[in-house]
């Protein structure tokens, strides 16, 4: 019975996916599963950062890539969820997964408030983007003065040496965190595919392409834009919980700052906005190359703070000029993979 159900889900997920695409995905997944045994500890932490950005990039892509709503303040959902889960853990000893269950609805509600204000009153395009920045900045300044979370001095989680990995409490070595983030990235990927192949996904694409024409086709644009922001915020919230328990500290400047929001969207932009695999590819390309650059600079004895940011800028410039659709729409046909053109 269970097996039949699982087979049904697998059949649904792989419906219309070519064998070649599945082979590529299986190979990639196998490689990622084996990675911690192949690479050293430092590279595992780099891979965690890559997966973290792949995850958040996918979450952001639901809003921008699918529904066409540009958010430049997604850090607010990371920050809110991180602070909630961390505070519950510090004050009441509540486990992070339970903390996540508390943080998710708060992040989703925050998304709903921003979405309601914007979409009900016809705030679109760059004005919507500015509104999302405003909310994130408001949260950054607010949390910077909020005594119960230690304001600007930052919130620290107790760090103790653990003799074994405890995934339930998110305490353990980087390898454990790596697998947690890998699982989250895979789940987000599956979720995104299910969404985009369903009724809601078609309606989002229609709104992204032409909202007035979408409404003329009977689509309640307000409602579907609300779904997009709430789902995107809810998905993003897990990244906040992960961030809090992986880094063990939260500073308003770091988690709510605009640089966090920007970093989240660079991956999808470089990989391909609106594609399923673009955010993942973009995270690998950007962070992978940036880390290689850092390593190369260190090996040659250079110490150039800020080189990474310059590198991000150059990457963005190259992609915008040479491949305005992102790398994935260019690369996919060359690998013999066709993703529904989006």
């Amino acid at each position: 019975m269970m097996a039949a159900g699982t087979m049904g889900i697998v059949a649904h997920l792989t419906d219309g996916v070519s064998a070649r695409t599945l082979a590529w995905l299986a190979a990639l997944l196998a490689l990622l599963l084996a990675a911690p045994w192949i690479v050293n500890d430092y590279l595992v932490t780099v891979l965690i950062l890559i997966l973290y950005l792949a995850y958040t990039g996918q979450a952001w892509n639901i809003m921008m890539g699918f529904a066409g709503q540009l958010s430049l303040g997604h850090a607010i959902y990371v920050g809110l969820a991180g602070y909630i889960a961390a505070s519950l853990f510090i004050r009441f000893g509540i486990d992070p997964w339970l903390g996540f269950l508390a943080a998710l609805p708060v992040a989703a509600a925050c998304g709903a408030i921003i979405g309601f204000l914007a979409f009900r009153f016809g705030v679109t395009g760059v004005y919507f983007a500015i509104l999302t920045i405003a909310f994130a900045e408001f949260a950054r300044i607010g949390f910077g003065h909020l005594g119960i979370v230690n304001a600007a001095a930052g919130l620290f989680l107790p760090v103790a040496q653990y003799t074994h990995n405890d995934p339930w409490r998110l305490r353990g070595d980087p390898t454990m965190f790596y697998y947690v983030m890998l699982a989250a990235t895979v789940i987000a990927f599956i979720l995104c595919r299910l969404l985009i192949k369903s009724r809601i996904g078609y309606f989002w694409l229609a709104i992204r392409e032409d909202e007035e024409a979408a409404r003329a086709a009977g689509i309640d644009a307000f409602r579907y834009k609300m779904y997009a922001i709430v789902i995107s915020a809810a998905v993003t919230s897990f990244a906040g919980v992960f961030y809090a328990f992986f880094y063990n500290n939260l500073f308003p400047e770091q988690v709510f700052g605009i640089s966090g929001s920007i970093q989240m969207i660079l991956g999808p932009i470089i990989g391909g906005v609106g594609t399923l695999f673009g955010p993942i590819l973009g995270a690998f390309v950007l962070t992978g190359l940036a880390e290689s650059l850092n390593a190369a600079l260190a090996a040659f004895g250079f110490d150039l703070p800020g080189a990474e940011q310059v590198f991000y800028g150059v990457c963005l410039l190259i992609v915008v000029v040479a491949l305005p659709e992102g790398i994935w729409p260019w690369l996919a046909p060359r690998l013999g993979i066709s993703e529904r053109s989006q």
Partner: protein
Amino acid sequence: MTALLSLTGVSKRFRGLVAVDRVSFDVAESAIFAVIGPNGAGKTTLFNTVAGAMAPDEGTIVFAGEPIGGLPADAVCRRGLARTFQLVRPFPALSVEDNVIVGALLHRRHVGAARDHAQSLLRRLGLFDKRCQIASTLTLPDRKRLEVARALATQPRLLLLDEVMAGLRPTETDRMVATLRELNRDTGVTILLIEHVMRAVMALASRVLVLDHGVVIAEGAPQAVVRDPAVVQSYLGAEAV
């Protein structure tokens, strides 16, 4: 005869300009009804008030027994009025098939069922072979047909066509006329069209309404209307008769 769509005293003003001035008419179920008139006569404004793109300032619009004046466009569509745009607006980055699937999903929950419906419409509109093309790569006649297919996919009782023949060559116009006539005959869908191309109006419409400066100057069977002196003077010109 029961009217599917009934307008009573509908007016729409833009500041001082009265674009539509107390217009009343009835469209019978399964009819093909054309609204004609010179440029700036208020045809598109009238159309937009019916389609929900604008609320009328005065008057009532009743569709299938329910008032729809002032309802938003998506609510109007869900009640069974689907429109096309004068300047076509297919979803540019989506494939032809996906464009129509969007419409078909309005009354269907599953993409598979919507795809089946979309494909049958694409066959009817002669776009089936182009279903995998990206909409923005289509020629204008094909984009116009795609708009009709997408509107039809929402299973309307009333199809609102805003100058769907404009910019088409005569052979393409004839093809569109034939398609619409077949549709009307086979499915019984009522059609309200705004049209400049008299050749199409004469071939299609069972009833014609003529607008000039926002006012109805004539209404009746097409053959009678084109001989109406007021219509000839304001719109058609002597040589058109």
